[in-house]
C-alpha cells in the first residue's frame, strides 16, 4: 500500500469519493437510527407492565406483589422493648432457620448484644454472638447462647439489646448500590435482589448499623428482610413469633391500633444512630447511653 497524497487525485474522483462517503454515512446513520428505535421499542414493550403479577379485572389495578397482598396498603414498622429482652437468642436461631442463613458465628440477619456494667466501671462490657466464650457456651457455632460469665461478678447494671436491619427511610445502602440491586419497596421494606447483585459489598460498608453481610454461598450481599416472605402471607417475622417475652413487635402503622402504633404512642421511643439521617424504622424502648 503506497503512501497516499490527496493532491494526486483528479477532481471527479474527489467528488465521487465525497458522494460515496456521504451516502455511506447517511446509510449508516439511518441503520443506526433504525437499530436504536428497534431496541428502544423492544425495551419499552418489555418495560410496560403488560404482565402484572395477577390478571386483575378490567379497570382495576393489579395487586402487587401477590394476589393477596397489596403493597400500597401497608406501611410496616418494627419495635423492640429492650427492657423485656432476656437474651435467650431464640430469635437469632429462628431467623437463621427461617431464612437459611449461614450457620456460623459471623453472619447474622439479627443478633442480640449484652451490656454489663461490672465492678463499678463506667463503661460496660459488651459482647455478642462472635465472642469465644459465648460460642463455647453454645457448644458449636450453629446454635447460640450467652455464656453466664457475670453470674459471680458484681454487676451494677446489665441488659440485652436485640438488633436487626432498620429498614431505614433514607437508606445509605440503597444510595450507594451501583446497580439497583437493593431498593426500598412501597410498603417500607429494604430488600436485596439476589439475582442482580454483583457482590461489590459497597452497601455492607455504607450501613452504619452493621446489618448487612456477604453471603459467600451465593456471592451476593444479604440482610434481614423483616421476613418479607412471611409478612406478605399475613404472618409475623420469625423472630417476632418466637420471642417468649414479647420484646419484639411488628405491625402496620397504617392501622392506628396496631401493636407498634400503640407502642410508639405510649412510650418515649428512640432509634439507633439518628445523627446519620438514615431515619431508621425500628423503634426502641430501653436503650442506654452506651448503645451504639
Amino acid at each position, binding site marked *: *500500500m503506497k503512501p*497516499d497524497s490527496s493532491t494526486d487525485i483528479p477532481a471527479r474522483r474527489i467528488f465521487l469519493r465525497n458522494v460515496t462517503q456521504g451516502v455511506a454515512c447517511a446509510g449508516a446513520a439511518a441503520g443506526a437510527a433504525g437499530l436504536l428505535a428497534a431496541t428502544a421499542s423492544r425495551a419499552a414493550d418489555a418495560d410496560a407492565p403488560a404482565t402484572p403479577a395477577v390478571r386483575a379485572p378490567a379497570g382495576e389495578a393489579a395487586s402487587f406483589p401477590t394476589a393477596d397482598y397489596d403493597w400500597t396498603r401497608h406501611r410496616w414498622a418494627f419495635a423492640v422493648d429492650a427492657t423485656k429482652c432476656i437474651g435467650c437468642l431464640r430469635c437469632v436461631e429462628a431467623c437463621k432457620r427461617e431464612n437459611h442463613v449461614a450457620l*456460623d458465628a459471623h453472619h447474622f440477619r439479627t443478633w442480640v448484644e449484652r451490656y454489663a456494667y461490672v465492678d463499678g466501671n463506667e463503661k460496660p462490657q459488651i459482647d455478642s454472638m462472635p465472642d469465644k466464650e459465648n460460642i463455647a457456651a453454645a457448644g458449636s457455632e450453629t446454635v447460640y447462647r450467652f455464656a453466664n460469665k457475670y453470674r459471680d461478678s458484681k454487676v451494677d447494671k446489665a441488659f440485652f439489646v436485640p438488633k436487626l436491619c432498620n429498614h431505614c427511610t433514607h437508606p445509605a445502602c440503597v444510595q450507594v448500590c*451501583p*446497580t439497583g440491586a437493593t431498593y426500598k419497596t412501597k410498603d417500607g421494606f429494604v430488600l436485596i435482589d439476589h439475582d442482580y447483585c454483583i457482590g461489590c459489598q*459497597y452497601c455492607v460498608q*455504607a450501613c452504619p*448499623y452493621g446489618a448487612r453481610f456477604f453471603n459467600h454461598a451465593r*456471592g451476593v450481599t444479604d440482610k434481614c428482610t423483616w421476613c418479607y416472605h412471611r409478612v406478605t402471607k399475613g404472618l409475623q417475622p420469625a423472630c417476632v413469633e418466637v420471642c417468649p417475652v414479647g420484646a419484639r413487635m411488628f405491625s402496620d402503622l397504617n392501622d392506628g391500633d396496631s401493636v407498634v402504633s400503640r407502642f410508639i404512642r405510649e412510650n418515649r421511643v428512640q432509634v439507633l444512630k439518628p445523627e446519620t439521617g438514615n431515619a431508621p424504622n425500628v423503634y426502641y424502648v430501653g436503650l442506654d447511653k452506651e448503645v451504639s
Partner: protein
Amino acid sequence: MDPLFEAAPFTGYVYPNETVIPWSVLIVVYPYLTGLVAGSFTVSSLFHVFGLKQFRPVARFAMLLALCLMVCVPMPLLLHLGRPERAFNAMITPHLTSAFAIFGYAASFYTILLLLENWFVYRAQIVQIATEGRGPLKWICRIASLGSTDLSERAMHYDHKWIYVLSIIGIPAALGLHGYVGFVFGSLKSREWWSSDLMPPVFLLSAVISGTALVIVLYVLTSLARKVKIEEACIKGLVYTLWGFLMFALLLEGVEFASLLYRSREGIDVILTYVTGRLVVPFFVLQIGLGSVIPLITLTVLVIRGTRGRALIASAFGSAVLVLGAVLMMRWNVVIGGQEIAKTGKGLLTYQPELLGREGLLAAAVVLCMPMILMFIATRIFSPWAEESRAALLRGRPVAA
C-alpha cells in the same frame, strides 16, 4: 473447636457481621493502579498540554504507561466481586446516586481516551509496521491504522490537534476518575476514619505523586537498560513536580488527620488506641516517615542545592521508590485501616490477608505486576523514545513528538 468460618480476630465490641472484613487487599491495589494512571497521565500532559519541553523524553512513555495501567485497572475489581459475570449491571442500569456506578462509565471513557491518545501518538509507528512489518503483527497494525497510511504534514497536524484536545479533556477526566475513588470512601457516614470532605483531593494528590514517582523510576531503569543518557532536565522537572505535589499531599493528609483528632467525636478513644498501636508502623513509620518525610527532605535538598549529575539521579530515584511505597501504604491504611476500626466505635479488628486465593496477597502481587508486563510487551512493538522514533527515521525528518 475449629471455627466454621475464618473471621477476623477482634478486641472490644464489634458488630457480629463486621468480623468478616468486606474489602481485601485487592481494594487497596485498585486505587493504587488508578492513581498511577492519573499520575502518569499528568506527567504526559505536562508536555502535551503545558508544553514544558523538559518532559519530552518521558511524555510518550508516560502515555503508554497510563494505558497499560488503565487496562489492568478492572482486574482487581473483577477478582473481588462476588458475581463478576454480572459486572456490567452497573453499566446497564447505573444507579446514579452511587459513586461505584460512575466507575463503569468513567473508566470506560478514560480507557477509550487513553487508547485514542496512544493511537495518535504512535500512529506513525503503526503505519510503519503496517507497511513494512511481517506476520500477524502487520495485519493487526493494518486494521489499527484504519487503512490509512497518511503521514503527511496535514495528517500529522490533525494528529497533534487531537492529542492536544484529548490531553486537555484527559485532565479533568483523570481528576474525575481518581477523585471519585476518594469520594467512594469520603462520602460514607458509617466510618469515622473515611468520612471526610478531604478524601477526594487527598486521593488525587497522592495519585499524582505516585504516577510521577513511577515515571521517574521507570525512566531511570529503562535508560540504564538501554544504556542511554538520562536527561537531567527531565529528571529535574520530574523532581520539581514530585516535590510540589508531595508537599501539597502531605499538607492535606495532615489537615485531615488533625481534623479527626481535633473534633474527637464519639469513638475517638478507640481510634487513638489504634493510631498509637497497630497503626504506628504502617502509618507513622512507613507512610509518613520513610515514605513522605525522607523523600520530602531529600527533594528539598535537591532543589535548594541544585544538585546535578549522578547524585541528582540517584537521590531522585531513591525518593521515588520511597514515595511509591508511601502511596501504597496510604491506600492500605485508608482501606484496611478503616475496616479495622469497628463501626461501633468500641472495638478493633485485625485484617489477616490470605496468601493464596482469589483475594490473597499473591493475587494482588500478580495484579500489580501485570501493567509492567504489558508495558514490556508494548515497548517491544512500539518505541516510546522520542529520539528513536522510527517514523522520523523513515521520513528523514524530525517528527514533532
